[in-house]
Structure formats: C-alpha cells, structure tokens
C-alpha cells in the first residue's frame, strides 16, 4: 500500500514537472501550432495529475473530473478553436511577442521561484502526494498571466488564459479534492463556452478588421486620434 502511494507520488511529480515544462513552452514558443500543442500537453498533464490524485487520495470525484477533462481540454477545446478560428492563423510560424525568447524564459523562471515561495500561503495540500501541485500550479498561473501580457496575437493570448485556468485547477485539485461534483463539472463547461465565444470573436475580428494582432489595437487608448 505504502509502495503504491509512493509510486503514485512519483508519477504525480513527473506529471507536475511536465506541466511546468509545457508552461515554459507556452510562454516561449514562436509557432502558433506549437503554442496549441504545448497547451494540449499541459492539459494532459493536468488530467493525469487529477487521475493520480483521485487514486492516491481516494477521491472518486476527481476521477470523474479527470475523465471529463480528458475529453474537454485536449480534444474538444482545440477542435473548437480549429473550427472557429480561420485556418491561416494556425499556419503562422513567426508570431510576435513583446519580449524575446531568452528574456521570456528568464522571467518564467523568476515567476516559478516566486510561485514556490508564495505557495506556502495557500491552504496545505490534501495529502503528501499532492504537495508538488501547489507551487507548480501557481507557477502555471503566473506564467499564463505573463504569456497573456506579452503576446500580441489573439490565439496565443486565448491559450494564455487556458494556461492560467489549468494552473489554478492543478492547484485546486490538490487543495480541494472533495469539491461537490456539480461544481467540478461546471468548470470545464465554463471553459468550453469561453473557448467558443472568444474563438468566434477572433473570427469576426479577422473578417472585419483584417488582422488578429490584438496587440496593435490602440484606437481606443486615451488620447488616441479619433
């Protein structure tokens, strides 16, 4: 029994490590496709972690969440994005961002350190198996916010939001594995509606404005010439 718990803990550590790696990828990759793939990898790590925590903490609710998320996050949401966002956007290889890759990675590293420091102020994890989820989830959240800030294109910004949500959930599963099922179920559906609405918004923006480089949208800034 103790052995299997230790094994689950190690596996969860591996999933959390990969989660962190893909967060770094989200912040630093230059390709639109790559951005989406990193998001899919990150979501799969989240699902695996939920599954392992469900087994380790005997929380059947988490298993149900893992099952639902395994369909929603890596499959349905990317599919929805593909359907709503114009095809040519995904073919772009050189997407713009405000800071270059080495500085982005350094900032992501600093944010990770900050997350490890701040995770002490969150409620303790439900078991030793889940302890690693706290700092890693918080780091995912911070890196997601950073990604959102520096990206200038619509889709990577949207994926940044998903990164923030994944980070919050990775943390959340660890500290609150016993959330009522109805609430756990509400989160993925909420994300689905967000993907749909913002995806459609991206499409309309591309059609009406001719670009999805939202970083260049400044006509509403204070003092902008009307």
């Amino acid at each position, binding site marked *: 029994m103790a052995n299997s718990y230790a094994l689950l803990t190690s596996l969860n550590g591996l999933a959390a490590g990969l989660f962190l790696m893909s967060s770094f990828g989200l912040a630093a990759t230059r390709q639109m496709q790559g951005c989406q793939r990193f998001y899919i990898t990150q979501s799969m790590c989240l699902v695996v972690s939920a599954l392992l925590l469900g087994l380790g903490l005997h929380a059947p609710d988490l298993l149900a969440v893992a099952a639902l998320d395994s369909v929603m996050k890596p499959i349905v949401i990317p599919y929805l994005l593909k359907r709503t966002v114009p095809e040519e956007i995904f073919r772009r290889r050189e997407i713009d961002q405000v800071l270059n890759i080495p500085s982005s990675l350094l900032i992501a590293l600093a944010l990770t350190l900050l997350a490890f420091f701040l995770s002490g102020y969150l409620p303790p994890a439900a078991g030793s198996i889940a302890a690693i989820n706290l700092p890693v989830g918080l780091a995912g959240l911070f890196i997601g916010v950073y990604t959102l800030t520096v990206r200038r294109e619509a889709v990577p910004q949207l994926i940044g939001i998903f990164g923030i949500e994944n980070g919050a959930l990775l943390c959340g599963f660890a500290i609150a594995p016993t959330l009522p099922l109805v*609430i756990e179920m509400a989160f993925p559906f909420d994300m689905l509606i967000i993907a749909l609405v913002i995806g459609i918004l991206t499409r309309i923006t591309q059609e009406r404005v001719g670009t999805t480089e939202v970083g260049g949208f400044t006509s509403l800034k204070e003092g902008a010439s009307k």
Partner: protein
Amino acid sequence: MILLAILAVPLIAALLSCLPVGRRVAPAVTLTSCTVVLAMVIAAATRVAAGSSVVAIVNWVAIDGLSALILLLVATVGSTAALFSWGYMAHEPSARHLRRYYANYNLFVFAMLSVPMLAEPNLVWTGVELTTILSVYLIAFENTHEALEAAWKYSVLTVMGGAIALLGFLALFAATRGQYPGGAYTWHTLIELAPRVSPAVLATAFVLILVGFGAKAGLVPLHTWLPDAHSQAPSPICALLSGIKTTVILYVILRLVPVLNASGKVDVDGWAMIVGLFSVGIAAFLIIQVTDYKRLFAFSTVEHMGIILTAAGIGGAAGHYGAVYQILNHALTKSFCFFAAGATLLAVDTRQIADVRGLIRTSPSAGVALLFGGIAIAGAPPLAVFLSEFSILRSGMAEQHYLATGLLAAFVIVAFFGILYHLNLMVFGQPSSQTAHSIPVKLPRSCVLTLILAAAPIIILGVYMPQPLHRLLEMAADGLSR
C-alpha cells in the same frame, strides 16, 4: 420556488427570442419577461424585508437582505433597459442580428440574476464567469473595429481575472474543508468558520479574489477595459454593464468583508479603503480629460465602485449602510445616465463631446435628460446619490477615518466639476452649423418613456424612502457587518 421561476423566465425568453417571426416579437418577449421577473423579484424582496426567509434549494439557492437588494436592482435596470432597447435598437437593419441581440440580452440578465441567488461561493464564481462571457457578444454587437477591440480587451482581461479569482475561491473552500456545519458550504457558514482558518490563507484568498474580480468590477489598476467596453456597446447594454454588472461583481467581493472581519486578524477594511480610494482618485482625474461622453459615464462607474468599496472599508453600521445605499443609488442613476447618453447619440450621431453643442435646442428631451443625469450622478442635492455620498462621508467622520474621508470628499468634488464641465459644454451654447445637428430630432417614444420611468426613482429616493426598501437596506448593511 419563486426564485427558480425568476431564473427560468429569462431562459424561456431567450429561446423565444430566437424564433424567426416578425421583428417585434423578440423585443416584446424580452420586455414581458423582464417585467414579469421584476414583479416576482419585488414579491420575493418584500418577503425578505418582512423577515421571512426565501429559499428555493436549501444551501444552494436562497436570498437574504443583501442578495435581495442586488436582485431588485438587476430586475429593475433589466426592465428599463429592455424598454429602452425597443426604440433604440429599432434601426438595426438585420432581423437576425436583432433576434440574437435579444436572445443574448435575456441570457445576460439570467446570468446576473443567478449570482445573488446562489449561496454556494464556488457556484457564484461560475455565475460570475457566465455574466462575463454572455456579455462579450453584446459589447461587440456593432461589429466595428472599435467595438471588436473593446470586446477583445474586455474578454481577455476579465476572463483572466476570473481564472485568478478561481484559485481564491478554491483556497477558501480548501481552508474550511470538512468543517461545514450540516455539511453545507455557503456564504453564511464561511463567516462562522472564518475564525478557525489561518489568517494568511484567508488573506491570500481575499487578495486573489480582489485582484481577479476587481478586474471584472473595474477597480483601478485593472479598469482599462471598462471605458472601452462601456462606450462601444449599444447604450441599453452600457446601462446593464455599468449600472448592474459591475455592482453584481462588487457584491461578491463585499460578501467576503464579513468573512474576513469574523476572522478578526486580517485588516480587510484597510485593503478595501486603499483600493477604493485609489479607484476614486484615478477615475476622478481621468474624468477631466475625456473626449467621449459615454467614456465620461464609464469613468464615473469606476469612481463609484471605488466609493462603494471605500464605504465598506470605513465600516461600522453607518459605513455599511452608506455602501449599500450607494449601490442602490448608483445602479439607478448610472443606468439613467446611459439611457440619456443613448438618447443623445440618437439625436446627434456622435460620441465626441467637442462635436456636440446646444443639445437642449436641437433635442430638448435628450438635452434635459443628459443634464439631469449628469447632475444626479455627480451627486448634487437633493438627488439620491448626494444623500448616499453624504451619509458615507458622515460615517467616515464618525468612525474617525479623517484622512480617508478627506481624500474621498476631495476626489468626489473633482469628479463633480469634471462631469458638469463637460456636460455643460454639450447641453448649452449655440449648435454649431458645421456639426449639422441643428435640426431638432424626435426620439423614439419608448426611449422617452424609459427616461421618465428611470428618472422617477432618482427624484423620489432623494426626498422619500419607502419603508420596505429602508428595511431591505438595513438588512443588507447588516449582512456586511456580521
């Protein structure tokens, strides 16, 4: 049961609004649904004010004094905005586009009604996210470059805020894990459990929620989306966004004030006052430099969110009463202001302050409405906002927060002159021949009717407060104090 009916009616109306039959059906359905909801909400709120409990599903869907007040405001502004939409949106050429507008309108109202009704904090988070996501389409409705830019900024910033707040809600839930009296996790049990939770965790959760939902409520420094979204959306939607959506989000933040006060170890009042005053101050000075009159009212919303938060921070029975009183007056007055701004836009077809002169000659009803709205929201006596702002300042002195009260008074005065300076330029003077708005314009009848109906409570509340409403305000203030 009445609560579930209140939620069901807008959902049914949203479905009916999608039916491809005649241009008049969707607006009529929406107006009827909003009026029915308003009647039911008044019935429910009266019961709450009379001291009986209104519960639909124990521990999940129930209302108390504070939530009844918010519900009442959502239903009131929802109805007046539906009436205003009738005439305002009539120029929309595409019937399909119009049906989608009303379907989304009903869904948006549904989401806003759900937030005060839900008693389980995690579900409240879901409700708040729905209010955000269901309003994106309405903001982008005009489909112009500016509207899409505003909708983009709005969705990205506020959804990000939502994700940050999510962690705060999960932390609150986790910190009280397994200790709920009777197995229920609600706003009320949270207050009971707060003293047992580590203050550091409580403070972290509060900061996460304040930052996250502060972005949605338009608190400085994450307010940048608000003037864009609230100026680009169609005017009835601006009234909903500025009048009640921001209030609904702020309500969720205010729900945490008694929780943190119950803990006794976190200085939530200090946080609320600092963030609140910061918002009031920045917004007051931003009001001076606006060039667009819808943005003027939008910045005034940021200012009022700050005033309400400051009042909640001042605390004491009088401070809390001032906060809920201000919530009531702001929602009613700000929605009126956006109706007046919408009427002005119909009359002059420009949002630029510099392009509008002598409005009172070209469109007397829009001119009078705009002037009245400006005077009312700036806080001139004897109108409603003056009374609530005055009660907040008085409670600040009584609670010996002299610095905060002094700053608040100074910022409110700056905003007062800022608002009236701009509106004075627009309403009076000679209509310029270059702007080509010298021919008097007739407003749609439903718009004029809305302006009259929406102005009535602002005037009446300035001189008379009905007893049940006073009782409801007291109960709501009590909800902040516990």
